[in-house]
């Protein structure tokens, strides 16, 4: 993310809004892990969706071919982004739509507000959209005296409870049915007091609550899953029909879409509408998909707007190692397979974008130094499950490692005195630079066993290394090193093992054979 360009903006334009972790991930995760209900709900949700996904993916003989196509189409999109945006704009505009460009969250919020004001309305209905969550649109509109009603069931639950979504696909996964019933009874004016906590009854309560809103709404705000450059078509993928309501009934439709959501051509949709539903909800196809191109006379909204949002996307694009994070189609498959996310939940990541993709996308969009986002690239065990699950093959682990490097570099630039880590690394440099040095150190192994005591477990290391033992025990070091064992067991022809400086002894067995087990 370094580098200056001549005659061009000297610094990446970072994004703002709900993209930041406000406390370090380890701290937030520690708190969230204490929430047993959340952990149980999340474990159930991630495993259920994961299993469904595997089943429907296994059905297709050409799944990997589709992933290859999807990945290539997205890379091609990013490589030609300016031309595709202009092509999309020309097509959408030719059919009566209006395009607005927003550099950041503030500008996008202002544009949407002025478009709503121009209609004279003070209420809007909303379809679930991550882009509008990212820019904090609902809060902004509220400050401006405009009420925004979320219409997706989960978003409605979260909004009524004045809470934040915890999963991008099932935002209210942290609440169970009885909690949802309580929220409805407390917050819905015209609710039946005899409401039970049966999901079907709760869904019906939501239908009744929103129906009048839909039928009288004049303005809707949506996001978009895909924008097709060669036709100027927009797409919204959903399940409940609230999207269709918002996209069809009001006079005015305002869509907010990140600039990276384009696909070059209409026929590319045939790839992505196979990849997305199967990766996301584990369905062969989602119940409803709506497509519109500007204005259709006599059918649907006649006043149609699209806000194209940057808000840090160009900063992510400028990072050659990290730019593929923009290929994300927000399916949430990476979250559902992530061992870290499964335990901490979405709230621990702070940003609108949680899980493995959030851990790279958020710092790429805000810059690694923004608030506590530098802790996010460490919220991973680098197990690689996210990469395997990703329908567009984003190599998330590789980008995580790259961003960790960025973080270390950015900190090194501000710290002059050598840190403990620097000293340890210097020590390691010395130890590994010469076999004799290492041999000398290995003689200290029995000391470590002494420190571990009878239970062969080290519970507390000093200094910086203490961070490791704060949440883990360390098994006692082995009585001999691999090199010592090798030297004993594999006699070199001349009886001397290079590097150790010792003659071969009569060792038996492997070095681990007699060691204490893992705590």
């Amino acid at each position, binding site marked *: 993310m370094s580098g200056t*360009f001549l005659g*061009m*903006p000297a610094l990446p*334009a970072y994004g703002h809004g709900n993209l930041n972790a406000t406390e370090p991930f380890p701290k937030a995760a520690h708190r969230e892990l204490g929430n047993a209900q959340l952990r149980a*709900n999340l474990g*159930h949700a991630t495993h*259920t*969706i994961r299993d469904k996904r595997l089943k429907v993916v296994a059905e297709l*003989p*050409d799944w990997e*071919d589709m992933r290859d*196509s999807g990945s290539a189409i997205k*890379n*091609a999109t*990013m490589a030609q*982004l*300016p031309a595709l*945006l202009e092509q999309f704009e020309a097509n959408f505009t030719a059919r009566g739509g209006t395009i*607005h*460009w927003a*550099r950041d969250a503030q500008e996008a919020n202002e544009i949407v507000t002025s478009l709503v004001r121009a209609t004279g309305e003070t209420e809007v209905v909303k379809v679930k959209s991550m882009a509008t969550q990212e820019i904090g649109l609902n809060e902004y509109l509220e400050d401006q005296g405009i009420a925004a009603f979320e219409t*997706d069931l989960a978003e409605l639950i979260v909004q009524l409870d004045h809470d934040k979504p915890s999963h991008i696909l*099932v935002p209210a996964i942290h609440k*169970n*049915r009885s909690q*949802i019933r309580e929220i409805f009874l407390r917050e819905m004016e015209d609710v039946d007091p005899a409401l039970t906590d049966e999901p*079907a009854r709760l*869904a019906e309560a939501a*239908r009744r609550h929103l129906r009048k809103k*839909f*039928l009288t709404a004049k303005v809707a705000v949506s996001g978009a899953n895909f924008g*097709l450059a060669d036709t100027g*078509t927009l797409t919204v993928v959903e*399940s*409940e029909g609230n999207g269709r*309501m918002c996209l*069809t*009934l009001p006079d005015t439709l305002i869509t907010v879409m990140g*600039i990276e959501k384009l696909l070059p051509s209409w*026929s590319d949709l*045939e790839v992505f*509408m*196979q990849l997305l*539903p199967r990766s996301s*909800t584990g369905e*062969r*196809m*989602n*119940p*409803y998909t*709506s*497509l519109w191109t500007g204005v259709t006379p*006599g*059918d*649907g909204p006649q006043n149609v707007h699209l806000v*194209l949002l*940057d808000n840090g996307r*160009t900063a992510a*694009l*400028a990072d050659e190692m990290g730019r593929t994070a923009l290929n994300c189609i927000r399916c949430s498959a990476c979250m559902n397979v992530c061992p870290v996310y499964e335990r901490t939940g979405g709230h621990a990541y702070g940003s609108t974008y949680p899980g493995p993709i959030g851990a790279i996308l958020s710092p790429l969009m805000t810059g690694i130094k923004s608030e506590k986002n530098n802790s996010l690239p460490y919220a991973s065990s680098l197990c690689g499950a996210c990469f395997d699950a990703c329908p567009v093959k984003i190599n998330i682990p590789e980008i995580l490692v790259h961003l960790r490097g960025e973080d270390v570099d950015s900190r090194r630039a501000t710290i002059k005195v050598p840190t403990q880590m620097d000293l340890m690394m210097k020590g390691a440099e010395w130890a590994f630079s010469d076999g004799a040095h290492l041999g000398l150190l290995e003689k200290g192994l029995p000391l470590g066993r002494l420190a571990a005591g009878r239970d062969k477990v080290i519970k507390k290391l000093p200094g910086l290394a203490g961070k490791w033992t704060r949440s883990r025990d360390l098994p006692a070091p082995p009585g001999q090193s691999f090199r010592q064992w090798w030297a004993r067991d594999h006699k070199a022809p001349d009886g001397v093992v290079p590097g150790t400086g010792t003659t071969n002894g009569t060792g038996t067995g492997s070095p681990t054979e007699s060691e204490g087990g893992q705590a």
Partner: protein
Amino acid sequence: MSAREDILNRIGAALRDAPAVPDIPRNYRRVSAMTAEQRLEQLVDRLVDYKASVFVVPAAEAAGKLAELLAGTASVVVPHGLPQEWLSALPPAGTDDAGSPAVAVDSPQRRLTVAELDAVDAVVTAAAVAVSETGTIMLDGSPSQGRRIISLVPDRHVCVLRAADIVEVLPEAVARLEATAPQTWISGPSATSDIELERVEGVHGPRTLDVLILQ
């Protein structure tokens, strides 16, 4: 500088390394390997899985089957381009005998209001194409399918599909559809899994989906 110029400049700067535009492999299936019967069977299987009701009849019996499906329904709306013969077994509107429905026609000359549509019990439309592998029916707003609103507000959608319009894989359907037409792709009745991941059919869209396939 306008926001537009600014953003396009930022992108230009971000792509200073001029990344290559990769060739796009398209080795996935783009045409059906199934017979018409297999496609029909697969589509029925998928739709039933989505909790839709499916009826397969010879084309000549379309009107009779529709009259049967709509018996006991007080009112239906149809788009002006729905084939006339499909409704020929219904007694003319207003006669109101044997529980046959009042039929309202939505046309460019006479567009039903939201309130009128909300008072109607069912809608009957045709379909543009259907994908058997995913159980998806596509509406494209042509005269036999009507405006998007008429297949959305009534609580029951009866969709009539010609068996010849069933393809197997999505790419075949995408090739048939006009991109710029206002489209709705429907895979079962509306549903939610937002409460403890328990699937509930029927939220805001039509809670009942009946599919009548004509052979």
